[in-house]
């Protein structure tokens, strides 16, 4: 029974990290109608920056995380300026945006691979000391990752639903043209969205790096965030969070009780099953393309 609770807590904490990524995808998608494929590269970039800030410059953890967030925001906003904005202004088809984003992803991930090498690095943070509630031991980093992720999600919710710039972002997600006619600054919205998603990916990268390892292809885990957002319901932010938590818990249970090798296979099977029986996800209204 203790083991079961440990698995649940660990699952929720990894689910919370997935939800940061899933929300990031959903945010970009809801406004610009394309998936930011470079997102997984940002995640790996953020993890690498934090890793080197600690291991080369001996910074404390929070300072390293802050530096990683700032640098990832610069990368995210920069990539929007260079790779997406010209296409957006030209009203290019979505296919082109997708290819451009994939290009950014390929370039950044492989640059990381060439510059830093492809080896797996252990994050230099003492995550081993567990924390006891009764007989249930909980990794301190699991707890920290879960708590901070939920705090960030709450902050994001507050920003989107309780502030004026957040209102601008939500208006743009309904109709970007009309919103700009009503005086919403499109460029400011783009800046906000890419800055926010950059920060989210960096935090997710750092926590994922602590839990597993830091390596250039670590961004592949964003497949899980995608699966989670499909499971939860397309394009819905709460759906993305719920889907991520379900996936995280399911995955840790599979790894704990069935097979850790085939964990990823189970997440994929889960996606196929959900699509067969709930084509619109658990909380989504309709998966149809927007007209």
């Amino acid at each position, binding site marked *: 029974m203790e083991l079961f609770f440990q698995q649940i807590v660990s699952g929720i904490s990894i689910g919370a990290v997935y939800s940061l990524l899933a929300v990031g995808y959903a945010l970009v998608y809801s406004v610009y109608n394309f998936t930011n494929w470079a997102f997984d590269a940002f995640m790996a970039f953020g993890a690498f920056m934090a890793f080197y800030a600690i291991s080369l410059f001996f910074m404390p953890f929070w300072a390293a995380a802050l530096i990683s967030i700032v640098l990832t925001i610069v990368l995210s906003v920069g990539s929007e300026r260079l*790779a997406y904005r010209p*296409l957006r202004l030209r009203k290019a088809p979505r296919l082109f945006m997708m290819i451009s984003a994939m*290009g950014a992803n*390929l*370039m950044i991930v492989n640059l990381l691979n060439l510059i830093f090498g492809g080896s797996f690095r252990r994050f230099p943070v003492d995550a081993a000391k567990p924390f006891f509630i009764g007989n249930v031991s909980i990794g301190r980093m699991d707890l920290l990752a879960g708590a901070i992720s939920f705090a960030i999600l709450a902050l994001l919710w507050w920003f989107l639903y309780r502030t004026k710039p957040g209102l601008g972002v939500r208006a743009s997600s309904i109709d970007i043209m009309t919103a700009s006619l009503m005086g919403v600054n499109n460029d400011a919205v783009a800046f906000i969205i890419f800055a926010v998603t950059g920060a989210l990916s960096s935090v997710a990268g750092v926590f994922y790096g602590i839990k597993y390892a830091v390596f250039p292809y670590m961004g592949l885990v964003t497949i899980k965030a995608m699966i989670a957002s*499909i499971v939860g319901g397309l394009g819905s932010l709460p759906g993305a969070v719920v889907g991520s938590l379900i996936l995280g818990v399911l995955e840790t249970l599979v790894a704990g009780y069935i097979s850790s090798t085939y964990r*990823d*296979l189970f997440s*994929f099977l889960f996606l196929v099953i959900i699509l067969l029986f709930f084509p619109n996800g658990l909380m989504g209204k309709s998966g149809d393309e927007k007209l």
Partner: protein
Amino acid sequence: MGYINAIIILGGINVIAALGVAILTGYTGLFSIGHAGFMALGGYMCAIMVMEFNVPFAIALLIGGTFAGLCSFIIGYPAFRSRLRGDYFAIATLGFSEAIRLVLNNTYEVVGGAFGYMGMSTLTTLPVILIAVALALYFAHMFVTSQYGKNCIAVSQDEVAAQMMGVNLLRTKLIALFISAFYAGVAGGLLGFYMAYLSPSFFSITRSSDLLAAVVFGGIQSLIGPFITAFVLIAVPELLRFFAEWRLVVYGLLFVVVMLFRPQGLLGYVEMNFAFARRWWSKLTAKKDASAKGGAA
């Protein structure tokens, strides 16, 4: 000579797989970043057919391709039925190919796990590859100019409009996916019997990116463009070894640059045809006729 041979054979294999991606991505507008998975399925199936059941190579290739095509329905049917957005279909293909690689890496019984499937002979020779590429190009051309191909183009342009004109979206997409996976499967079989062994590491995400790169650079709605670039993308890193490492970084940069400055790719919307040859031939014969007439007069 052997070196040139190797480049032509590997290039030809890449061309066949890229033609499959061209049908799916270029013509139907569906993105796949997991075609390496279909290559793996076809390759292993073909190898098992030849090695364990003594099926002739050509038939085994077709079986491998068909197997890959049928497996593609595992993701194709749920993804297209629920009308997933193109981006999510791409993720599904990536997940599928990673899942296949995971299973192959951990199944030691028949396929040899991470060590790979060994003991195969080299059956893919230069004539085989030339015939295979010619057939692949011919059938791809027949497909994209057929009614099915036109349906695919309609779907890629505007799904809703295509549906209103009576195009069955699910069926069209599934057909395109089947053919595309079939091509990848055949390419996988050819690859296995050229290298004389198969390993899960052949079919990593890098290979999928290579195939996608060939189609993006070659141009959408074109067969001849991806045909050329798929070959060039194999030949260039082979000839310029120092470039091999930086290849993917440069591809990534080129993706962005191509989209910004020449989004249709090298030969986008340019269809391969032999009209120029026919024109040239008719001009030639016309001249002869004219001179013959002139001589008579």
